[in-house]
């Protein structure tokens, strides 16, 4: 295998384990088969009464028996511990458990445990927990506030719980960059391995903001779809002319990153190599990207530079593509960066099937992209009936396509004008 850019002369980082819980259900393979089949995870919000809100659809993690891909929490978190964690931590633990078990990494020695770290973030964290605690205080019952309130709401507590569960004593860190969290977590954790801080890192994002504060807050920011409350499956429609906002999803995506020689020495299965990572800031507006999404352009450009690649080397882009007006700005940036090579590019938004998992989105989408490499399949963009503008880029409308894919780029952008792109390649 040829070593490139970011990794040449340095420690190389590969993905050896993956875990997902999303509106498409539990488990990486279930997610992928449903995604490729063109299924979606949307419905009317069931976890609370949203009838007085303009947005009433979401992608919720389905409850149900574990064996049929539903969430039965007691199979993952002991009942007495459940109330000590917000739902985003529950979901993070479910995906982390799948990823760690998938990797087969069970450090036996103290040294190996100290060389294994965790870097799981969230965009918002324990919003519902904070809401409920606020009500308790407002009712004059501050002394009744649970001692688990703070550790239940803190974003870095997914990392904390994963390290406690598995005895991972290496770097214990967390990312908070809104909807760019998942990509930043993977990129930053990969760099920790490259720089020698750890040999193995469990990295990704978790989110559970389908709650009254989360939905109402994004409604007020005019960010959510409101015109498809009676047809939830049509609400997330990236690049389509009738798109009117994103659909909130919940879940978690977690990968096990590992130094290449370390993975090889223990005979681990290797899914892909992290070969490029790029970041940028818009310095423009708290929620809106600048014209031409020049921040996204620079993040992608930086990722390519770190990988030592040119656009011709990349066959698939998993777009941020949230089903908002910004979709076309990202398209502008990708077209400009890829130039003539845009003709050969496939780009889709899997948020059309899962909704926007905020801080978990980037990690879930990186995993989907790795599976696109494995199977040479580009997952579809659902509901792209009438693109608001044409493009030479194939956006894989409606139906998955078999394509040769060995290198992918995945984008995530967040409020605050933060942008991150990661490049992964098959090994």
């Amino acid at each position: 295998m040829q070593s490139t850019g970011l990794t040449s002369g340095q420690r190389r980082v590969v993905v050896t384990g993956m875990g997902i819980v999303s509106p498409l259900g539990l488990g990486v393979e279930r997610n992928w088969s449903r995604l490729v089949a063109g299924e979606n995870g949307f419905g009317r919000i069931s976890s609370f009464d949203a009838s007085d809100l303009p947005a009433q659809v979401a992608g919720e993690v389905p409850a149900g028996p574990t064996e049929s891909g539903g969430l039965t929490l007691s199979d993952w978190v002991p009942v007495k511990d459940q109330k000590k964690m917000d739902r985003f931590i529950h979901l993070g633990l479910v995906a982390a458990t799948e990823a760690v078990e998938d990797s087969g990494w069970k450090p036996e020695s103290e040294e190996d445990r100290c060389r294994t770290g965790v870097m799981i973030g969230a965009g918002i964290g324990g919003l519902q927990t904070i809401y409920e605690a606020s009500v308790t205080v407002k009712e004059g019952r501050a002394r009744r506030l649970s001692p688990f309130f703070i550790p239940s709401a803190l974003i870095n507590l997914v990392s904390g719980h994963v390290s406690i569960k598995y005895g991972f004593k290496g770097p214990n860190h967390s990312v908070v960059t809104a909807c760019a969290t998942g990509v930043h977590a993977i990129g930053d954790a990969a760099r920790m391995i490259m720089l020698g801080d750890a040999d193995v890192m469990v990295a990704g994002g978790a989110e559970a903001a389908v709650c009254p504060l989360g939905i109402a807050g994004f409604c007020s920011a005019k960010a959510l779809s409101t015109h498809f409350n009676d047809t939830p499956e049509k609400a997330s429609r990236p690049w389509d002319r009738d798109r009117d906002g994103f659909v909130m999803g919940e879940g978690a995506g977690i990968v096990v990153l590992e130094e290449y020689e370390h993975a090889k020495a223990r005979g681990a299965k290797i899914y892909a190599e992290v070969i490029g990572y790029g970041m940028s800031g818009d310095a423009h507006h708290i929620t809106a990207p600048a014209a031409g999404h020049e921040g996204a352009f620079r993040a992608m450009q930086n990722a390519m530079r770190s990988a030592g690649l040119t656009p011709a080397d990349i066959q698939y882009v998993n777009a941020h593509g949230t089903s908002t007006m910004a979709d076309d700005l990202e398209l502008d940036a990708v077209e400009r960066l890829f130039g003539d090579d845009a003709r050969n590019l496939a780009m889709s938004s899997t948020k059309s099937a899962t909704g926007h998992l905020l801080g978990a989105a980037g990690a879930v989408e990186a995993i989907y992209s790795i599976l696109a490499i494995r199977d040479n399949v580009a997952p579809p963009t659902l509901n792209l009936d009438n693109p608001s503008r044409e493009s030479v880029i194939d956006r894989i409308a409606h139906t998955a396509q078999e394509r040769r894919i060995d290198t992918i780029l995945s984008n995530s952008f967040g409020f605050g004008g933060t942008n991150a792109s990661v490049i992964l390649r098959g090994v």
Partner: protein
Amino acid sequence: MSEIADKVKKIVVEHLGVDESKVTPDASFIDDLGADSLDTVELVMAFEEAFSVEIPEDAAEKITTVKDAIDYIEKQKAA
């Protein structure tokens, strides 16, 4: 067993997720029933709520076993 003792036992079983048979009068929340310091804070809150009593912090610190809890609440209720 008194009504109070029954109720205390039930709360301990519920909050600490332990088997009822382990919740003997002498069982220590931390040493025998797997609680940590935050669990004991929550447990005391649950007692306060269930029995409509106030348990000040210095008294709460002395409640380390099932019997401690029962005795304290019975005394408050008798007063």
